[in-house]
């Protein structure tokens, strides 16, 4: 588990030996009496891809670089939107069907800021953070590529 010390931003890349992401902890981290809105995004493991049955996903990361980039993405979000608190977590190792691989929570005084920031953060994670996912099927496996 890697924490970045900025008091109102929590970034965690959760080691393969850990269990499920503790979503309540991240939501509670961003809860703030001055905020009127909390937006969250959770990426979960789907049971099918292009008609093939997915058994599980396996994630790995270049952890120190990924942590730095996540901190930079959160800092950019704060420059663009008026945010109170942000939590970003990405799980590594095996993620079974239906469980969260990535979770983002952002709080703000106004709802548009929280929702826009949440979307920006997941889009940036997909576009630039060195994390990889292998999709494991019943009869094979493949390293995925984010197309977007």
């Amino acid at each position, binding site marked *: 588990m890697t924490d970045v010390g900025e008091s109102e931003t929590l970034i965690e890349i959760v080691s393969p030996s850990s269990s499920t992401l503790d979503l309540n902890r991240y939501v509670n981290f961003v809860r703030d009496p001055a905020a009127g809105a909390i937006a969250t995004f959770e990426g979960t493991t789907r049971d099918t891809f292009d008609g093939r049955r997915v058994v599980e996903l396996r994630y790995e990361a270049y952890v120190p670089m990924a942590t730095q980039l996540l901190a930079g993405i959160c800092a950019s979000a704060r420059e663009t939107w008026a945010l109170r608190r942000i939590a970003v977590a990405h799980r590594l190792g095996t993620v079974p069907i239906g469980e969260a691989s990535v979770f983002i929570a952002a709080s703000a005084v106004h709802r548009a800021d929280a929702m826009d920031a949440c979307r920006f953060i997941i889009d940036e994670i997909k576009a630039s953070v060195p994390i990889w*996912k292998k999709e494991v099927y019943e009869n094979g496996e493949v390293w995925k590529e984010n197309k977007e």
Partner: protein
Amino acid sequence: SEPSVKIEVLFFAKAREITGLPDISLQVPPSSSAGDCLKILLTKFPRLEEICNSIVFALNEEYAPDSIILKNGDELAIIPPISGG
């Protein structure tokens, strides 16, 4: 004699699977670029050919162009197409 350039190379995802290694130490000629280093790696691990058109580099935890010159002690990561989220 010119100073030797010793770097650490990190492999992730498919690159790690192809090489069978998470990282190696590598001696490269002075003034080698990241792209030059990849050519050396291809001689050691010919199957990297499969992905060498799709990878990018990170030097000391920052994305870097093929042309970047390696210095002693650098950490060069081979970054296959990412798929986080």
